[in-house]
C-alpha cells in the first residue's frame, strides 16, 4: 500500500468536501491535511512511533504466513513480483521512517 493517498473527505474546519492528503506510517494513520484550508489532523508522534514499532513486529511475525498464502494462490505472479517487491522495500521503509521522524 502507498503511504500517501489523495481522497475527497469533508473538512470540519472549512466545511464542504475537499481533497485531503492522508498519510500512513506503515499500516497506521499518521495525518490528514485538507487541501483547501490546510487543516491538519496528526497523531502525537511519540505515540505513533510506539504504535508503529508494535505494528512492525506484528508485520514481521505474520509475513511468512502472508507470503505462503500468496505463493499458494498465485505462484507465478508471486515469483515475478518478488524481485520488484524486494527492490522497492528499502524505499518504502524509508518513506515510513520519514513520516515518523521528519513529519512530511
Amino acid at each position, binding site marked *: 500500500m502507498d503511504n500517501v493517498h489523495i481522497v475527497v*473527505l469533508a473538512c470540519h474546519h472549512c466545511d464542504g468536501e475537499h481533497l485531503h492528503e492522508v498519510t500512513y506510517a506503515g499500516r497506521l*494513520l499518521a495525518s490528514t491535511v485538507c487541501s483547501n484550508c490546510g487543516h491538519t489532523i496528526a497523531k502525537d508522534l511519540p505515540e505513533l512511533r510506539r504504535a508503529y514499532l508494535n505494528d512492525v513486529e506484528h508485520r514481521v511475525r505474520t509475513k511468512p504466513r502472508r507470503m505462503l498464502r500468496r505463493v499458494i494462490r498465485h505462484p507465478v505472479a508471486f515469483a515475478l513480483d518478488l524481485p520488484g517487491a524486494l527492490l522497492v522495500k528499502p524505499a518504502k521503509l524509508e518513506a515510513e521512517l520519514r513520516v515518523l521522524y521528519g513529519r512530511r
Partner: protein
Amino acid sequence: MTHAGIVLAAGSGTRVGNSRNKVYLPLAGRRIVTWSLELFRKIPGVGRLVLVVRSEDRELAEEVLDRELPGVPVDLVTGGETRHESEYRALLHLAEEIRRGEIDVVLVHDAARPLAPVRIVEEVLAAAVRNGSAIPALPLEDVAGVDEAGRLSRAGRDGMVRVQTPQAFKSGPLLAAYHAAAADGFAGTDTASCVERYEGVAVHVVPGDPRNIKVTYADDLLTAELVLAASGYEL
C-alpha cells in the same frame, strides 16, 4: 435458502482528478471496503456477497478482494449514477436467484461504514425474517426544532431517528419495489424509502450503534482506527 449481502461502494463520496474513492483507503491494515464486506462474512446465514463498484474502480476492487479476502466469493457489479440505481443493479444481478426462491433476505450496507457491529446485522436480519424489513437507527437526541416565530419547539421531533446501515429486506418485495420504482422513474434516498412506497411494507427499526459511523470527515478515519484497535484487532 440463503441471505445476500450487498455492499455499496459506487457512490462513496466525490472524486476529483486522480483522487481515490475513500472506501479504498487503508484502515488498520485493510481497506475500508474490506471491513464492510468482512462484516457479512461473520454472519453464517449470509451466503451471497455482492460489491457494487464504480467502473473505474473495478480493477482496484478485484485486487483488494484477491489480497484481503482471498477465496471469498464476491460478485462485482458496476453501479449507477445514484445510490438507488446502484441498488437496483445489484438486485438485478441477484434477480434470478430471488425468483427461484434461493435468497430469503437481502442486506444492503454502505461500504463507508466499516465499524457496523455484528450485533446490528444479526438483529436486522432476524427482524427482517420475522417482519419483512428492518433498519438500524439511533434516536435523534441532539436536535432542536424552531417554530415560525424563531422559538425553540419540540413539535414534530418525537420519534425521529438517524438511520444507519445495513438495512435488511425480504428479497421478493424488495425486487418488486425496485422494478416498480424503475417503471415510475422514482429514485429513493435509501432502500427503505423505496420498499415503503411500493410494497407498503412497514419498516421495523432496531437499535443502531453510535460506533457505526459513516466515514465522511477526515477525523472519522482516526476515530475508526481507534475503534478497531479498541475492539481487539491487531494493528
